[in-house]
């Protein structure tokens, strides 16, 4: 009795080990494909670098990003030098320190918005694709209707009227950009649910939940991963545009908000506009390159055509 139990446990650990080995091997293969794309590797390293900057902001920034020095005329509108690497703004704040703290807000908005969008998009898309019929029709008609409303203006109007706290901005962006994810996932579920391995699992009595989560989802999730990476970039761009129009959270340091600050004075202080915009562009390019790289590496058959 005990011996069968132990052997069962042993076989289970062996099984777990084997599946771990398979996963590790898949990961190595994936990395092998990914690293062939030099632009994608650049994108990934930039994303990691930005994440580190955001995490280590208190250590990297020399000055407070908020503290103003309005009385001290020797500290406003200073052009870049050794002490203030990127100069100072009209309130005497160090632009470099604000740039570093701004990485936090940008990445935070990007990931949370893309996360909300992925959660909504993947659940609605998979339900529509898996069940088909009336459910599918209802979800997709809703998506079609939703897509006719211009996204940027919807986000802008809601944030303008309901308040522009950071959470509001992130939630509204996330709840507005999910339709593309839903469409992609729906298409994947539609095609995978007819595949032999899913039919085989169904014929041995697997339920809906097992089929959706264990059989289809692991295969169908890749387009959502790629789209998610691109959505991080577009959410960052949207946040910066909102902040630029004065709809940012005034209690946060945001690159878009810095550009709003710069609007009145960037002609005499070029550094106030050049650096924040450069950072936004770099982050967005990095996530776009990452998304492209993931797409190529996750779809090996597409590439080898």
């Amino acid at each position, binding site marked *: 009795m005990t011996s069968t139990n132990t052997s069962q446990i042993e076989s289970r650990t062996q099984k777990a080990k084997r599946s771990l080995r398979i996963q590790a091997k898949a990961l190595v293969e994936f990395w092998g494909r990914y690293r062939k794309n030099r*632009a994608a590797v650049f994108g990934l390293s930039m994303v990691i670098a930005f994440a580190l900057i955001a995490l280590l902001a208190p250590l990297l920034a020399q000055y407070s990003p908020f503290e103003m020095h309005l009385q001290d005329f020797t500290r406003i509108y200073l052009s870049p030098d050794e002490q203030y690497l990127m100069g100072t703004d009209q309130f005497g704040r160090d632009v470099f320190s604000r740039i570093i703290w701004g990485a936090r807000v940008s990445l935070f908005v990007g990931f949370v918005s893309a996360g909300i969008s992925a959660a909504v998009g993947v659940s609605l898309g998979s339900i529509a694709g898996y069940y088909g019929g009336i459910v599918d029709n209802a979800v997709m008609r809703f998506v079609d*209707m939703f897509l*006719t*409303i*211009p*996204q*940027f*203006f*919807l986000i*802008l*109007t*809601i944030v*303008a*009227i*309901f308040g522009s706290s950071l959470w509001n901005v992130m939630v509204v962006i996330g709840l507005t950009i999910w339709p593309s994810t839903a469409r992609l996932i729906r298409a994947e579920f539609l095609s995978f649910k007819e595949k032999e391995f899913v039919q085989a699992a169904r014929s041995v009595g697997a339920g809906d939940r097992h089929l959706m989560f264990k059989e289809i989802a692991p295969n169908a999730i890749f387009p959502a991963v790629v789209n998610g990476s691109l959505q991080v*970039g577009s959410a960052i*761009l949207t946040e*910066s*545009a909102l902040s*630029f*129009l*004065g*709809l940012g959270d005034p209690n946060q340091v945001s690159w*878009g908000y810095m*550009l709003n600050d*710069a*609007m009145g004075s*960037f*002609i005499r202080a*070029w550094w106030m*506009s*050049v650096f*924040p*915009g450069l950072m*936004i*562009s770099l982050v*967005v*390019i990095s996530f*776009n*390159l990452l998304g492209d790289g993931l797409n190529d590496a996750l779809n090996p058959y597409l590439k080898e055509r």
Partner: protein
Amino acid sequence: MIRYIIKRILIAIPLVLAIVCVNFVIIHSAPGDPVSFMVSGGEIASAQFIAMKRAELGLDKPLYAQLLIYIGNILRGDLGYSFIFNRPVVQVIAERLKATLLLTVTSFVVTAIVGILAGVSASKRPYSRTDAAFTMAALGVYSMPDFWVGMIAILIFSVRLKITPIFGMADVGLSGWEYWASVLKHLALPAITLGLARLALYSRLSRASMLEVMRQDYITTAWAKGCDERTVFYKHGLRNAMLPLVTVMGFQTSFLFAGAVLIETVFAWPGIGRLLYDSIFVRDYLMVQSLFLVFSILTIAGNLIADIAYAFLDPRIRYK
């Protein structure tokens, strides 16, 4: 063809209605009641006025009746009265609409023509080194915030090189030809920066679309017939490659207007985009929400025009 166009127009009507309903929902879920929403930002309105406005909007009636009143008002072109501008909202918007249309249409025409020509010429020598460089440049341009590109363009072309004016739409006190020459000078930089992202997109898309089309059998036939390169590329190739492009251009309408808001803000272009920025600044919520409605309708109109253009380009629809 006529039937196709009429059908498209009929489809657009429920879309506009849906957007009107979304607006209604936004107004009614906003903090405070719709009347306080309407007088937001202005001086404190008299109690008498508020009572009058309440009765006018039928706030004591059930919600569906309020919605009907709201739709009725919009159909009559009554978007309310702005207490900030001290004028009816419709008047303020109508006055500024021309400037926005001038900016967006100019930008669209230039980017469409230049983008397509660049894409076609790139498709003649795909996978070359220049082609790869262009792909990277397009990705870079596409990732930049257009309002920042506008600021940098001002720094380079207006401040450093002094070839373009910085702000506004025209110099004051001009008329006739001189006025339009001045407008053109003011228009160049904002129109180009507004178009840059779409220029990248259209040139890449038309390249991809051309590569796809040039593989088709009828292109081989055209070469075999002895057509010269021009005829093959533009008459046989481009006309077919245009079809998916027109669809994307339709989808891009909403991004074109979103970009216009940002670009008008940077260049102080006196259109409804800059009006939106100013309204946000002074918290004129009624104006913000009305502009949402106007931009949504403009977007639907843009999609409609793309649909009709598609019908003209595709004989399969034209002769139906």
